[in-house]
């Protein structure tokens, strides 16, 4: 695996001139192997960014004049907007590369794209790609910091960080909490990133899914596996639901949406199995009535909307940290 830590490879851009004390990452490719200290630095800074986003003047020009390229090979309006807003609030020039109309469609390889982008001298690249390992590949070929916004079924580190921030703000800590991740684990980069982060921070991870949606030996990543909601939910502080792609409910992995909801959907009866103060999360977009009941998604225990807000804060924090911007800088701009 490619190292996302700075000491191993010097960067060519000016950004390397900054170095945040104690922070070791130059790329954010995944949560696997990221230290609790780096995670804590990111979460602490993200927590401060929440206040920035809540005030009337949301600009914070710590990264003024730097260039952020959003390179999304898969459509995702939500995630792309979140990164775009984060970059703009830090004063960056944000460019969204529309892959649908770019030369990728004309047969350019990922490495050709990387070389082309490199020549434009970006400071940060955010990439989403359907192939696992795509972000790591780009990080090897580009002179700038790379943030993985989802690579296949591998990792989606900013989602895990925003989930962690949401939990921390609700529960005060991650340590010692019992977190159930429910649903399509097999195809989920969100699940993998969360498993790594939660383990690093001392939470206990449970996975609840039908066996067809559990990848081989997933328990060895650091989780206890359950095949029934009724078995896995009791004692949980956090219930994290995953989206089930429609094409996977047509008999290949799960027979039908109605059977999935019957046995794995989160409804009020199942919520009651967890701890009384359990919070309910979903990375979105939700399939209401498939993995989660509407009244639960909109209920008092749901923090799903807050997750979206935390997304911008976390991405701001990640960009600043990777660029080595000091926390107290920029607010006067």
């Amino acid at each position, binding site marked *: 695996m490619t190292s996302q830590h700075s000491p191993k490879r010097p960067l060519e851009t000016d950004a390397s001139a900054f170095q945040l004390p104690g922070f070791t990452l130059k790329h954010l490719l995944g949560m696997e192997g990221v230290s609790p200290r780096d995670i804590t630095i990111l979460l602490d800074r993200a927590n401060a960014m929440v206040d920035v986003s809540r005030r009337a003047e949301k600009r914070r020009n710590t990264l003024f004049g730097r260039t952020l390229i959003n390179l999304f090979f898969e459509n995702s309006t939500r995630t792309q907007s979140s990164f775009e807003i984060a970059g703009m609030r830090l004063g960056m020039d944000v460019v969204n590369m529309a892959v649908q109309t770019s030369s990728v469609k004309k047969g350019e390889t990922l490495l050709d794209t990387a070389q082309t982008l490199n020549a434009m001298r970006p400071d940060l690249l955010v990439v989403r790609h359907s192939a696992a390992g795509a972000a790591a590949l780009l990080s090897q070929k580009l002179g700038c910091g790379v943030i993985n916004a989802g690579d296949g079924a591998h990792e989606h580190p900013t989602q895990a960080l925003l989930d962690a921030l949401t939990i921390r703000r609700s529960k005060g800590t991650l340590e010692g909490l019992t977190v159930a991740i429910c649903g399509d684990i097999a195809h989920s980069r969100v699940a993998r990133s969360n498993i790594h982060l939660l383990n690093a921070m001392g939470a206990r991870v449970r996975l609840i899914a039908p066996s067809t949606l559990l990848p081989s030996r997933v328990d060895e990543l650091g989780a206890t596996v359950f095949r029934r909601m009724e078995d896995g939910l009791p004692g949980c502080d956090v219930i994290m639901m995953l989206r089930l792609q429609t094409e996977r409910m047509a008999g290949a992995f799960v*027979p039908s949406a109605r059977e999935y909801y019957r046995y794995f959907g989160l409804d009020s009866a199942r919520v009651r199995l967890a701890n009384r103060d359990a919070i309910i999360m979903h990375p979105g977009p939700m399939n209401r009535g498939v993995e989660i009941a509407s009244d639960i998604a909109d209920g008092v225990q749901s923090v799903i909307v807050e997750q979206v807000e935390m997304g911008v804060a976390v991405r701001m924090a990640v960009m600043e940290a990777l660029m080595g911007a000091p926390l107290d800088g920029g607010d006067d701009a």
Partner: protein
Amino acid sequence: MTATKGKPGQQLYRNARIMDPASGLDMHGDLLVQNGRIVRTGKNLPPPKKGGAIVDCEGHVLAPGLVDSRVFIGEPGGEHRETIKTAGKAAAAGGVTTMVMMPDTSPVIDDVSLLEFVRKTAKSKSKIRILPAAAITRGLQGQEMTEFGLLRDAGAVAFTDGHKMVDDAQVMRRALTYARDFDALLMAPHRDPSLGRGVMNAGLNATRMGLAGIPREAEIIPLERDMRLVAMTKGRFHASTLSTSASVEVIARAKDKGLDVSAGVALANLTLNETDIGDYRTFFRVSPPLRDEQDRLAMVEGIKDGTLDIICSNHDPQEEDTKRLPFAEAADGAVGLETLLAGALRLYHSADVPLMRILECLTVAPAQRLGLKCGRMEKGARADLILFDPDHPWVLDDSELHSRSRNTPFQNARFSGRVLKTIVLGRTVFELKDQH
């Protein structure tokens, strides 16, 4: 056939040879039934309470009713071949008190509403218990899993694509994996759709007759595949109908490894071989095909030593139109409900398999594998019973079959042993008429 309405209260079956394979009990004595349930067995039991009935068994064998794990019925969609009603009558005449109905109907039993319809129809039209198995894949197409959880909750006793195996290994893998979460049993025959395209056992006979052969490998290769998939997924699996000696070895190895597998054999493959086809007799065209005598003996040995668990009728009614054809163009399948016990008793009379073991393979073994609390004579169990004379000589006349189709390979066959009485929940649902 006379069906006496069961009276509330007690029935005492007296003077019987009571054989219960579940407990190994084999004694001369009496059995008391109350409200459709077995109360006790013993010697010289007191007469039943007032209003109760006494049945003199005249020393014949009283055993649990047969459980047939593989029965094709035409209803819905093929009522000209067999209805639930006629299948129920045939079963009762053959001593079968519980049967598993295959989902190969039209429409296919692959959703909850049809499953419920079939269960309801079976309850009202049949005196014996008919339990539907649901399809593994939608429309038996081998692609998309059915709703195992909902179907099982609605009463599907097992899952099978009936005549077909699941050809796609990935689909089979996922089905085994998903079924495990619901503790559901998958059952399948093994006949590779491309390799098994022939019409009779591959070999000298097929060569001489100019017929396309079905090599043994058409069964062995997919069976080996499924054993690997069961090992990989830790699923529950029953190989419905095996026919080759090598298949028995495959099952023995799988059981040695501790896999949750069981195996069945159709009565035809235990009692007939390919030479019975004779002059292109299509009623001997069955699937799996009749193999040679060595294979037949290996199946008998497998039943005897316990490698094979279950004997089934593989009852598959076919109309004249699909059978009175040149051999290569005829349909597979033979009726078998009414000859299941009599045919199986051939193995007892030939001294190949003890009577108790034969009964075990026809009663408690399938019941246990299907998770049914029947096929045994313990206190509180369903009073589903048969009374049979293991030595009663008779000749099968196909005009007397209760089944709507008469495609039996046993026309004019001589048997020793016949069902005299079939009892479901304490009610007599079949009684043999006096023989002239």
